[in-house]
């Protein structure tokens, strides 16, 4: 009997149970950021728009337009403004319409 089968039996099943059960390795995944509107001043928003390499961030008046679909989870916006952008931990991002991925985040000081 080949030795690798014994090793396999010792280790057990490695296949993930997703979607029935969450996968423990999901916490290691790079994910898009989540923003704190309180910390998002207009200047900060402009800097974040400039630093995003895939044009996922944009300004529309006093709203930060965040295109989740364009985000590559590179982390530059988080590095630029750690108080305003954090790791969201969301990886289940499939959308049935493109608009579902365009998020509008009100900046600080503007009415929601």
């Amino acid at each position: 009997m080949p030795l690798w089968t014994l090793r396999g039996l010792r280790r057990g099943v490695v296949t993930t149970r997703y979607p029935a059960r969450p996968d423990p390795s999901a916490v290691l995944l790079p994910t898009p950021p989540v923003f704190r509107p309180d910390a998002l001043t207009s200047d900060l928003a402009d800097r974040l728009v400039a630093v995003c390499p895939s044009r996922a961030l944009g300004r529309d008046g006093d709203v930060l337009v965040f295109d989740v679909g364009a985000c590559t989870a590179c982390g530059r916006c988080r590095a630029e403004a750690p108080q305003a952008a954090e790791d969201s931990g969301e990886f289940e991002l499939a959308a049935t319409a493109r608009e579902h991925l365009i998020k509008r985040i009100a900046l600080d000081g503007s009415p929601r």
Partner: protein
Amino acid sequence: MTSQSATGLNVPATSEELRRTVARMFGRSLHIRTLDTGSCASCEQEIRLLAAPHYDLHRLGFFFTPAPRHADLLMVTGPMVRAFETAARKTYDAMPDPKVVVATGACALGGVYQPDPFTHGGVGGTFPVDVWIPGCPPSPLALLQGLLVAVGRLADQVKDLDFALNRTPR
């Protein structure tokens, strides 16, 4: 999702009807045709891992097939380089109805590349896309979730996320 009416014209049936048809037909057995329209192949590497023992999409009833005639779902990566457009269109046309198109990765969603003489910048203009999977590249778990959304086994939950942490009440 596209389907043919009895007269043969390409009119969309009610989406609820189609959703149910797709869930019934593809929910447990789906054949996926991947299409690389000019990507860097990172998405392809993640897609390849789906067949590996850890993620194992076969346990969900999903299979990869190279033949568009046998495929139910077209998984498109890459920003749709213009030189590839005819071949991509031919692949789409060669798939029988009903079919589902899943745009995978930030390039296909229009993120990374601007339209320019060499590329369209995204696949939305070439096919009617049903599910969009963001990521660069989307992890195999994200891909699995996207495929399950495409066949109706999981719900589209990103529309309820607002990617903004709660404001402190004024």
